[in-house]
């Protein structure tokens, strides 16, 4: 591959590494990467896309539920539990952490805490989404991304 490509690859690797370093992603994402193979060359991206679609629904439902008065904490908890499960399955670390906070507030029936945390959840989610989209786009441009390697 020419220098340009090599540079691009390096760049992508760096981006990827930073995603891990900054804890946007965790080990689970690597699991996904490891699942990607010739029969599913875009597996990771497909899964993440599916996650976005699903998440949109969860976030919307959560938003709705948070609008209700009084707050139905158990429903919120249940919704967030699902969203957390989803996020953790793709390795969205920060999102998952915020989800946990949210559930803690739910258990404590702290409405303010819940709403505040939910904003964090959304923020982390949006950030991750942007970063991943950029990452995948670049990867596509440069060709097959290198295999998953544990970030050091």
């Amino acid at each position, binding site marked *: 591959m020419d220098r340009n490509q090599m540079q691009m690859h390096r760049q992508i690797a760096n981006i990827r590494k930073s995603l891990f370093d900054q804890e946007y992603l965790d080990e689970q994402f690597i699991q996904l990467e490891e699942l990607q193979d010739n*029969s599913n060359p875009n597996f990771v991206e*497909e899964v993440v896309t599916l*996650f976005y679609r*699903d998440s949109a629904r969860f976030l919307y439902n959560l938003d709705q539920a948070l609008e209700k008065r009084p707050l139905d904490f158990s429903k919120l908890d*249940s919704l967030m*539990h699902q969203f957390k*499960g*989803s996020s*953790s*399955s793709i390795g969205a670390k920060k999102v998952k952490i915020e989800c946990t906070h949210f559930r803690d507030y739910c258990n404590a029936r702290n409405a303010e805490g819940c709403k505040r945390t939910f904003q964090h959840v959304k923020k982390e989610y949006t950030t991750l989404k942007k970063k991943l989209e950029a990452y995948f786009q670049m990867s596509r441009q440069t060709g097959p991304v290198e295999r998953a390697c544990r970030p050091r």
Partner: protein
Amino acid sequence: MNLGGSQVVNKQSMMPSSSGASWKSTVAGGSGGGGGGDGGVPDQFPAGLRVLVVDDDPTCLMILEKMLRNCNYEVTKCNRAEVALSFLRENKNGFDVVISDVHMPDMDGFKLLEHIGIEMDLPVIMMSADDSKSVVMKGVTHGACDYLIKPVRIEALRNIWQHVVRKRKHEWKDFEPSASADEQKPPEEPDYSSSANEGHNWKNTKRRKDEDDDGEDRDDSSSLKKPRVVWSVELHQQFVAAVNQLGIDKAVPKKILELMNVPGLTRENVASHLQKYRLYLRRLSGSQHPGGMSAGFMGGPDAGYGSISSLNGLDLQALAASGQLGQLPPQSLATLQAAALGRTTNSKSPISAPVIDQRNIFSFENPKSRYTEVQSQHLTSSSSSSKQMNLLPGIPTNMEPKQFVSLQHQSGQHSFGSINNQVLIQMGGQSQSQSQSNTIPHHGLRPPVLSSEMLTRGGVVDMATTVYNPVVSQASSLVDFSINHKNDSTGSSYPLGGSLGIPNLTSATPTPLQGDGNLDTKVPRRGIVSSYDIFNELNPSGIREWGLQDVGMTFDSAQHTMQGGSAPVLLQHNRSSEREMGGQNRNSTSGKAIFSPGVESGSHRNVGQHRNSYVGENSLRVKAEDGSSHNNTLYSEQYGDDLLAAILKQHHQQQQPPQGVGQAETEFGFDGYAMDNLPA
């Protein structure tokens, strides 16, 4: 199954798309692969392991699928529990293991777990992002073989095959590969499924043999090759009656044993059965809230309890079958079922009590069942029953109306349930052969009632005994009935906890349930009998409830068959004409020993194991009854209408079931059929 072969590959290619479509195709592929077992080369195990993964989260589902594929497993995914269940039912031997999420919108994962355990007895692995101890414990108590915390890593999935092997190993260990594998289901797949079949077959055959020869009371703690006591419905009813007589608190194995006076039964048998029963009861009482308990006391390992319920169910079915169901008035069926379910709560009136319970059972299970009148009464009466019903709310009961479902619940999911299910199934299966269209929708439910009736009549006892011994009177036939349902493979078809020690009993003369009311086995779902609650508590994890729920579920499949066929099957039993009813009616399945040894504690296991949908066979087996006591006569005489009428009559006569007892019955899983509630 294709070991990572073409099929798997195909699946993969299809999979990337939405789960819905893909899994369908996968299913097709899987089914083909699974069923055909092409290549099922054991050597390649665990490659080709057929996994069904259920999760409402599409992201997780996609990831799991890919992971499992990468493990060279054959994956089928579904995002709805009900779909998964129907899928499992349609392909009785199509899967080796199920992985399910805990939180799903249409059905609680634990419920699904119970159903699967009872109906198909497949190893089920639960998973959730929730790692709290209570939830994990719940998984354990509901019988999950493993619990994975999300996010799931591929390493965790690589070893799931061990659960399959372990389960199979347990199934086989109690049986000696007896030669008679009469009802062996021709293994569709040489590998896993076949082994499962063989296991089942062996079990069945062994059960049958056991009936004749064992008589002993071996502890069901199972040493290898130890003949297990099969707690048939009758036996269980006797047991329950004895327990009720002594009082739950004072019921010690020694005294129970004395009261039961069943030759060949040891104190150990009773002790272990008692333990299961207690757990079951506890679960019943607790199930109201959690709703997990549903399934009556199926008697986990012992399935003894289950057997009773199953008997009940069987009876009902038998009655239905015999009476060409159509003839039986719905009510009578309900009554029968109630009776069956009730199992003997009434010490006073052997039949009445059970009848009532059965009714309740019915009601619980299917509030909408046709016998609503009867059932509704019960429903209202037994809160537990209602619980039961709710248990399978989400499940679109393929089977017939909720009744089956409720039956299942009642039958206590695992062990018991299995029996009940079996019963139900059998009924259903029978219908197939018989093609009788039983008007009674609740075939599933019916059988239990019938069985109880039989049991209560005293014939129940016979049933237990007959399970293994053809000699056993009708009761046995009924038992078979239930057992057959399950998976028919359980030969002895008392899978549900048939541990009533039928086999042991066989040697002994069928002792009609002592005190008709003895069949207090009816554990009121609602735990009316507080004493029974104790049982529930004691219920060790995984003990399937007696509830007929399972029955219902399983029945579902059977239903179709049952409808028409069930009745005939039962009838046959009653007529005691054919011992192997199974064989006759259900041509479909090789009458695996209805009361196959599976009934024992592991029975529910066995029951479930018979994935071979041996629906009809078992039931037919029950036939053996020869007239053993009046119970038999009861059935034989009345086959069908008469039977129902008789039952009803008795019921009415005996209408005063001890309240407590009745309730206890529900716990057993007879959901809600409060004896009292039964309208006289």
